[in-house]
């Protein structure tokens, strides 16, 4: 699980997510799980960008290690999957 840097460029981030092979999920910390490969979920994710606490309190989980590497530039911290 990885956490965002606060100054992340969301559009750039989503462009990279589109290139990921496996699933990429966002865990909001409030019980929401958004599959960022789904169009509707990406819109929901975008709507969170205005709510700083919701976004910065969330975690990203990549299904594939190579996708995790792709998103390296956006990462602030990392923890083991629960």
């Amino acid at each position: 699980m990885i956490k965002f840097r606060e100054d992340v460029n969301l559009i750039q981030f989503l462009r990279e997510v589109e290139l990921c092979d496996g699933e990429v999920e966002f865990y909001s910390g409030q019980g929401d799980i958004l599959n960022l490969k789904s169009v509707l979920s990406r819109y929901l994710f975008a709507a969170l960008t205005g709510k700083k606490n919701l976004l910065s309190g969330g975690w990203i989980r990549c299904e594939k290690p190579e996708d995790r590497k792709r998103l390296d530039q956006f990462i602030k911290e990392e923890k083991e999957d629960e």
Partner: protein
Amino acid sequence: MSVQDCVEERLLVYLGIAYHGYGLWTWYFSEEGELYYTNCPHEKELQTFFYLGKCLDYAVSQKDQPEIPFLMSDSLGLVWLGEYVAHPGMERRFMVVGPAFQDRSSIFGISDELARMNITQNLQREYLGMLRELPVVSLQQFHSLAKSLHYVNCFVDTGNLEIKLQNFETDKERKVWGSKPVDYEQANHREKMLLQFVRDGNPGYGDVFDIFSRFEEEGYHGQSPVRNVKNRTLIFADQCAHAAMDGGVPVNTAKEIEKEFIGRIERQRTVTALTNLCREMIDTFISQVARHQTDMEMSKTVRECCTYIKSHLSEPLTLKGLARQMGYTEYYLTRKFQKETGTKLLDYIKETRLDYARILLSTTNLSIQQISEKLQFGTRNYFTRIFKEYMGISPMEYRRRAWGGQEE
């Protein structure tokens, strides 16, 4: 300085009209898509929406084009208007106005989809709250806004202005709202031709459909292109059903097919999906007419046998039972059936059941297991296997597509 030279001032006035008159925000981007300025309070969220709808990439792709307004739409039903602005002493950039929904029904659709997702009420509320704040501007109003924008930008006559419409689903451009009105007479003629193909059971309608698919979508009382095409297709479904009846298809069969397609038409979300579905609908009606015409060349015994099978699909059907029902021996009936139809009797039963399974998959909530039991396929695995052999896709996938689930 003359009014002609005051581009910045004119655009500023336009910005005020767009905001105060329609509730629309204005955005300025560099040719590369970098945001320079916006008066939108939800800058981050909506700029990301602009990207997600592929509108940003589309606008950037227009940088080598002359100054012509373009309308962009996304899968939520949001519309944005853009045009490049280039004047001496000013860096070329594009101006965008939006977003707005074309009608409130888009929000209801989103709300239904959210309810099916694994997200908290809190997030649903936040998201819908933001969407409800967005203005509703009809396409006709956007058309006027596009003309005004072009006028303040280029200071030229906009009488014959053609506006580009970016359709993100196909990444194709379509010209909309030219000065040309809908040619109802020609459209009516094309529809009649298509219906004649259905009546005759003739599958060679390709060219006519190509023309038909470009038929203007105005005049069907919808507030969006998708709704307009939906309305048109719904009307056409009924016309096709009647043409099929004229071609000899039994009323119940034609009405069942019509009912199946009406459900599927309502669930589609894009013009492209509707156009494809319309073609599938015509194919289905035509094949039914062709099948019926073949039926008419059959003997009374074989016709009765077919009717019996169709009305007893939910019951176990055996060759022995069918032969007894028709008053012949099993050997005689199966040979006669194959000779007249070119299909083995058991294959005919299986294919008729699979046709009915398609209707149940697309029009009911019955599970795959329930459908396989109802139509005497025995196990779900067997049903899935032969359905896949017959249709090329699994029952689940067929249902997903029939319910308009291509997006996710």
